[in-house]
């Protein structure tokens, strides 16, 4: 698969050089690349799920390493893995349904494992698998039973070839898994590109007549959200913090104005001054962590604190691909990225006075230009995702819907 390999490399390079940014676009690219990886992956007759998982994981690790801050990549990789596991499981349960078919259905790794044990053990394994990949976090029993079994998955791939009695329906099942997975991935692509509309549909419930809304950063989700409310004949006013030094607020303001919204651009420093007249702060997240914390454009924490101080609702819009199953530790530093100082300070302006620091060896001047900001869950009033509105405390549960526990650590 040289072509897939090259597209992956190309994408990795893009990620590394930050040519492609923003969770929406990276998520889309990632999922498309994974789809081609899956479709091109030659699947062994038995145990094809684990083969797919391995392939996706290998590519996923590359992508995540290319830009660890772009959490959406990791999220999407985990989503795809979860899809594979689920499809695999549903095929297995379908095979289970008719017990007489059981001998033939050795494409599943678990079957090889349990061949000599008998039906009762078999059904236990299926139940365990089902429990593992369904929504609940694994119970103690499933953990105990599931561990050897999931560890056995790779081994069985070699032994899987022993099944001589291949039937016609087996190859169809093989194809079916891949087909199902690709269908699931397609569904995911649709979901990612369609999350704006689903979020925007809820706008009318949250934005009322004559409200004043503050936003910052440039988020397509926010844009669609506000415009959806506008289309429903709600008239309101939007304050946009300009978001120095990237000035994404200006871009957002430009688009808002183009769609006929009353927009006022303010400096970032005026956020606190204006918040007392603001009815709601709406921002688009870069990523939502499992604890309900939000990683957003720089300056968001300031706005959240000010909103808290004035009891203004702080609403975060996030598509499901932004939900990250990880719990953050020191996210301000670890999940952040420092950009070029030249955005803040023209080197020519200070170069003459920098000579003074040359003697001591260490530079006298440091310029800090972070990209992201972390908002702790206590400052967030509401998350609006494509599945509806949620509390910060509920996010861990929502996240469990989308990811399987095995993939959390890649």
């Amino acid at each position, binding site marked *: 698969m040289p072509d897939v390999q090259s597209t992956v490399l190309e994408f990795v390079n893009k990620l590394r050089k930050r040519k492609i940014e923003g969770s929406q676009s990276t998520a889309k690219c990632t999922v498309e690349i994974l789809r081609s990886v899956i479709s091109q992956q030659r699947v062994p007759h038995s145990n094809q799920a684990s083969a797919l998982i391995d392939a996706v994981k290998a590519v996923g690790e590359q992508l995540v390493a290319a830009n660890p801050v772009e959490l959406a990549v990791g999220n999407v990789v985990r989503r795809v893995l979860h899809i594979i596991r689920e499809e695999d499981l549903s095929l297995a349960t379908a095979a289970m349904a008719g017990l007489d078919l059981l001998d033939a259905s050795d494409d599943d790794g678990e079957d090889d494992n349990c061949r000599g044990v008998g039906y009762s053990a078999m059904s236990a394994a299926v139940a365990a698998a089902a429990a593992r990949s369904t929504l609940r976090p694994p119970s103690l029993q499933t953990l105990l039973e599931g561990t050897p079994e999931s560890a056995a998955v790779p081994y069985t791939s070699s032994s899987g070839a022993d099944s001589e009695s291949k039937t016609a329906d087996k190859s169809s099942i093989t194809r079916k898994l891949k087909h199902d997975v690709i269908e699931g991935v397609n569904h995911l692509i649709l979901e990612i590109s369609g999350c704006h509309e689903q979020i925007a549909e809820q706008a009318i419930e949250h934005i009322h007549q004559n409200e004043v809304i503050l936003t910052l950063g440039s988020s397509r989700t926010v844009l669609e959200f506000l415009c959806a409310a506008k289309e429903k004949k709600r008239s309101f*006013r939007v*304050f946009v913090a*300009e*978001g*120095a*030094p990237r*000035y994404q607020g*200006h*871009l957002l*303001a*430009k688009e808002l*104005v183009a769609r*006929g*919204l*009353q*927009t*006022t*651009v*303010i*400096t*970032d*420093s*005026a*956020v*606190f*001054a*204006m918040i*007392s*007249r603001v009815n709601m702060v709406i921002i688009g997240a870069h990523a939502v962590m499992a604890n309900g914390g939000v990683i957003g454009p*720089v*300056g968001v*924490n*300031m706005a959240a*604190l*000010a909103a808290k*101080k004035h009891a203004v609702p702080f609403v975060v819009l996030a598509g499901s691909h932004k939900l990250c199953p990880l719990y953050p530790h020191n996210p*301000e*530093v670890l999940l*952040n990225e420092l950009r070029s100082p030249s955005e*803040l*300070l023209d080197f020519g*302006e*200070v170069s003459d*006075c*920098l000579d*003074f*620091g040359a003697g001591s060896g260490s530079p*006298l*001047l*440091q*310029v*800090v*230009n*972070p990209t992201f*900001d972390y908002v702790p869950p206590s400052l967030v009033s509401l998350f609006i995702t494509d599945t509806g509105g949620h509390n910060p405390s509920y996010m861990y549960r929502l996240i469990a819907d989308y990811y399987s526990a095995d993939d959390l650590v890649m």
Partner: protein
Amino acid sequence: MDPRRGPLAVPKVRRVGFFTSIEPSPETPRPNRSLSGPAEAITSSSPLSDSPSGQFISPVQIPPSRHHSDNLASRAAPVPVPGPSAFRRQLANDRALHVGSYNPVDSLLGTSPPSSNGEVSEDSGSLFGFQRSDSAKLSASFPNGGFDMTMRVRAPQESEAKVAIASTSDGRKKNVEASERHYQAGEGESVAAKPRKEKETKSLKEKTSKAERRAIQEAQRAAKASAKGEGSKRAGESSRPKPSKPAKQPQPKKEAPQVTSSVSEKRAVSVEKERRMDVPQTQMQYDDKSRVDKAKRRSVVEQTESKNKVELFLHLPQYERGNQLPNLSSNIFSLDTIHHAVYKVGLQHLAGDISGDNARCIAMLHAFQEAINDYTTPPMKDLTMDLTAKINGYVSFLIECRPLSMSMGNAIRFLKNQIRKLPVDLSEPEAKASLCSEIGRFIDEKILLADKVIVQHAVTKIRDGEVLLTYGFSCVVEMILLYAHEIGRKFRVVIVDSRPNLEGQKLLRRLVTRGLDCTYTHINAVSYIMGEVTRVFLGASSIFSNGTLYSKVGTACVAMVANAFSVPVIVCCEAYKFHERVLLDSICSNELGDPDAIANVPLRNNKKHSKTMDNNKNLQFLNLMYDSTPAEYISMIVTDYGMIPPTSIPVIVREYRREDLLL
């Protein structure tokens, strides 16, 4: 963090408010403290240690209930004869010497903008390299241009004088206009004004009948209006007779009865009332149509209202920027009512050449000093009244150029009080000299000296290994940092900056040049950097009596984030900036800057977008200048009276403001 609460508990707080002389106990901790350099410096810097017996005298031991300022000013004030002012002068000098004994700060002050040589305006401009080219030319042309201008100003009035009475002496011509207003104000009232003036007035009255005087007025007004009409297009107004009387008029009208009574007690009673109407313009609500129109009619600066106003701030002036400057600077040779020094300062404010509250205030006071020096009382008028009216005119001009800061309002109020309490029997030169020296004293004592004291206080709060954060550019904070560096403290500075002024770069430059270890970032990243900060030092534009800090926009954000990270916030503010107003939010009272400054983004790829969107009425740019920080975010305020919590602001305002301004 124990240093956080520490400062509030320190005995120095007691210097505020009431303290009695039987309180020697704080003396005991004192020597310990004075072991360290700066503490000693504080004692010596404290004005109270002026007493001959010299060394380590606690401020607490001095017979209290009055602060040092009344040693100098207020004690002398009730018996205001020329003598005390000289004495005062000397004392102030004395003290300046004394304080100057710690040299580091002296040298440091010499380089920083509010230097004591009256050249602040020019200095600051050229020092920062911030001067715009056009106004640079302007200010450069000034020293020579001043004389030319006065000559030319007289020229048109010469013709007026022909129309007017032949007996008007040459010296009076300048003030013909003012006297005209006086006529109208109180035909008969003004007669009784002063025994000294009475004769003149009467003789003048006899010479000119009522009708004649009316004719003179009309002619004068026509001449004035047509002169104005050359610059502007409002020639039509010249035909308007009496009803277009400028709104300034009520001022002398109301004052006239007071002067007639001339009883000092009555004056003192009405002081409160007057004070309120002294600077009404700062509180002017610009959504009040009629008043705005009235103000416009008399304005010198031709303001065009911006088309795209922000609805929330209709109560504040929103004008187009930058277009009046060339017009105004060409007008400079034809102006008649505004003194050239004041005019120059006004233009500098307009152009943004002078920024920073202290610099602006000092520049204004120096201009007033000059104006007072050049002032001559018109023949039939009272110096107190006329000078106040003149100053009012200047102030409203300055307001047109740029809304006054709170500190400037305080300084103006101080000046007016000084004028008001001038003794009646003082001759004009004496009165002028006294006023000028009072202004000089105000600058020296309330601003320059106060800064030194603040530096001494604040430096005790900087320890080795600390990381100090400051926001924007504040002269006092700069002095503190540089001084702390000079006395060998090892610390790191984080400079937080914000668009559109990027004043922090100025500070960064200066600190890095001096060898301080600096980190520069913008306000959005403040919560990223706050984790490593141990103290926040902020400057102030004003502090209101509910403890609200009114300062450059963004200060509130920094203080809020610091508070969230449990980092102590120390505000450095001279006491003359305290104000007895109260403020709850940043909306009701604020100043709007140039919206284009925000629209112009240094973005490489899409530079044009805001230009093309300029005409869209849905898009507005809001450039707030100030915001108000709630008192709860402030751990401590360092003033010239010591280190106090924000709750003590009203105490300072009540106890000391009254002495300085009213007595």
